[in-house]
């Protein structure tokens, strides 16, 4: 197991280097932050002076060398727009995103897993098709559209919930639903597939022969085994949530890392963009590694393999 973790960590480091390099050069292909900071009648002299002040005047390879040198020491630069260390800006906003994720995952599991079970048990029936429709809708509905729709119905028309921003428990409801919608489909589909496979297993047949009630067979024996592949998807889903939060946080004016990413892109804030992408990658890699280790413990077959 130790060798496995060490290998995964090494892979992670290589991946991070690649991500950092790609983001550095791709970001610079999209323009210059100074163009977005200067008014349209700015003189070439003022523009050149600002480029120099921001340290964007050197050759790109020199800038890359400086970036790498500092990144190795844990310094991912200073946000061009906010004049704040980019890492600090990321960690200021990270908790705001993290408070949304567990609720979104929980809601998605509470809806997606029972739907998957019902669909599997009633394979080919109306219920299966209805659950499939829910899954397709969840995947097909763009988050920004769903978010705006929810705001219109529950905030504007019914007046039950606030339209956006961070605040008390009521402020969480619509962003969590929006984030969870996509995952419901994912949980439902993977649970359904896993359940169908498990329901054909010998031990399930044995349980039925032993006279266990259908409820116990399905919800206790089948579901418990079907949840193992669901667990592996956690890492993927959390990654989806972190990246999907860009849209949800923008629609709901939620000051998390999703919005920070959006702002970094819009303002061509290269240091912030690099920091956000690299730190998000570390976050997702860590979660995936954690989930894989957990999976290995849950399913001894993985360990043996």
């Amino acid at each position, binding site marked *: 197991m130790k060798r496995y973790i060490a290998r995964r960590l090494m892979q992670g480091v290589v991946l991070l280097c690649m991500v950092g390099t790609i983001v550095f050069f791709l970001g610079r292909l*999209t*323009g*210059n932050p100074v*163009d*977005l*900071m*200067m*008014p*349209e*009648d*700015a*003189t*070439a*002299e*003022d*523009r*050149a*002076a*600002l480029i120099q*002040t*921001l340290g964007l005047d050197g050759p790109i390879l020199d800038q890359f060398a400086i970036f790498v040198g500092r990144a190795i020491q844990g310094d991912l630069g200073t946000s061009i*727009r*906010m*004049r704040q260390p980019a890492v600090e*800006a990321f960690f*200021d*906003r990270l908790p*705001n995103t993290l408070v949304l994720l567990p609720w979104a995952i929980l809601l998605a599991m509470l809806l997606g897993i029972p739907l998957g079970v019902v669909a599997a048990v009633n394979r080919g029936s109306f219920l299966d098709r209805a659950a499939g429709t829910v899954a397709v809708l969840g995947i097909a509905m763009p988050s*920004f559209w769903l978010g*705006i729709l929810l*705001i*219109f119905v529950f*905030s*504007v028309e019914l*007046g039950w919930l*606030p*339209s*956006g*921003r*961070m605040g008390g428990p009521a402020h969480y409801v619509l962003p969590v639903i929006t984030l969870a919608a996509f995952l419901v489909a994912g949980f439902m589909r993977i649970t359904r597939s896993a359940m169908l496979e498990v329901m054909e297993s010998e031990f399930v047949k044995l349980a039925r022969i032993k006279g266990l009630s259908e409820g116990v067979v399905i919800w206790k024996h089948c579901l418990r085994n079907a949840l193992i592949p669901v667990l592996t998807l956690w890492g993927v889903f959390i990654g989806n949530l972190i990246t999907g939060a860009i849209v949800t946080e*923008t*629609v*709901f*004016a939620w*000051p*998390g890392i999703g*919005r*920070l990413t*959006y*702002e970094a892109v*819009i303002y*061509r804030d290269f240091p912030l963009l690099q920091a956000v992408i690299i730190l998000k990658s570390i976050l997702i890699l860590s979660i995936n590694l954690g989930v894989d280790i957990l999976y290995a413990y849950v399913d001894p077959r993985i360990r043996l393999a």
Partner: protein
Amino acid sequence: MFRKIARVATLSVALVVAVTVPPHAQEQKGALVFAVESLGAQTLDPILEGRPGNAVYQAVMYDSLVGFDLEKGGVGPGVAERWELAPDGLAWTFYLRPGQTFHNGDKLTAHDVKFSLERQMGPNSLASAAASMRRTIKSIEVIEDLTVRVQTTSPQIGLPAGLSRAVAPEGAIMPKAYIERVGEEEFRKKPIGSGPWKFVRNVPGDRIEFTAVTTPHWRGRPQFKDLTILLVPEESTRVAMVRTGEAAIASIGPETMLGATRAGLEVLSVPGTMQAVFQFWGTYKPEVKDSPIAKVRVRQALSLAIDRQQVIEHVMNGKARRPHPFATFAYTDYFSADRWKKWADEAYRYDPVLAKKILAEEGYPNGFELKFANTALPGTQFMVNIGTAVADMWTKIGIKVTLKHYEWGSFAPLERNQGPLIGWASMYRTAGRPDAPWRYDGAFSPESIQRLLGDTDNCQEACQEYVKTARALGSELDKTKRTALTDRMVEVTANTWTVVPILEGMGYYAINTKQVGQFDAIAGRHELGDVFERIPRPEQKPWKK
């Protein structure tokens, strides 16, 4: 008898108070919540923020050396109540209002003005005009507590305008003694200004909170007790927040106006905040010599093909105006606005028959191929729709338009390098500012980034005439002659049809009338940072039904 006298006296006093003090005048209550699409750098240090951010939220707590003409728009008194140019044109003297204080009680003096301008010009400043200020400002002297003189390296007629928030953010006045005492870092955490609102809290990515000063202020004493500026990037969410009362005012685009009105919201239009234009790149270059757009009359024909009223009605929902010539407005300084309005109404008319006739006369009876870059500066997405409409109208007179859309950040490098844009037309925008020469310099000077009339290697007749006029304008001290020169500059450039205005746009806000009373914004100033203190509570001045 005594009781009777006392009763009469009491009633008299009450009557006098009732007549002289308007109801609610002494009260400051409630919170004014404003939702905006961007808070820029969201820093309260004026040297770290650009023009839009400064105008949205820094203006709330900082006064500017030169302010606004609230009636007409454009430049007016600010921290300085008046200013005068030295006879040799090499110094401006600013006379400050007496009795101004910062929020910590320190007096605002000429020392603060000197400190603030020098800080804006300093090496750590991100001010967009920092380098220009370093070049043009020779020294800043404190003459006495309320008098400061700015010596310039050459006549800088536009300096007061450049230090007015109507034009640029560099005139923001910061507290010298406080910053020197606590240091820059602490100042950024606990900023102090002299404006009608005091800083309370800055929550990055979410909001900035202010509270009203309780003493009278020359900009107006706020009617609300608190002001919160919310960052809400999504327009639909901003409108929803105004509908639900979570915000009182939200910035919107023209495409949302109809929906907001139908939802029962008031829509406020601020006149003269921008001009949408189309312009031709590198028409003087040898490689464009044989291109149709190298011909002035062809460019004029393309203007005649545009039905501006249709664009105003259908893209801007009627909330826009026919334009003055390029980068000029009713409030432009030293400019014969009425004369040019009449000229523009005639010159920018819709006459597709004449447009086709001109094209035929110029040798293009069947039109020609034209590459057109459609783009929009941040916050003006409707520009893309205007560009699309313009392309359609050109198609109707036989032009085969190749329309290419660019996100602004991707368009700006093309503009700078020019290579890929030479021989193209593009959409562009100019912000509403009272000083035309500044914007003209950015578009037409051979050394400028855009250099639309000619560059340093190739400056032909119109270009030379522009340079001569602009140079004379830069050093002309006489107001009448200055107006004549501005008019000449406008004439020279307008007749080239290189940059052609499409419409004069407005700033738009959705308003919940139950949350705020009726108010007007400042003409030409899209942002409300200098307006919040003059917004009444709904019971003070209800909106007309």
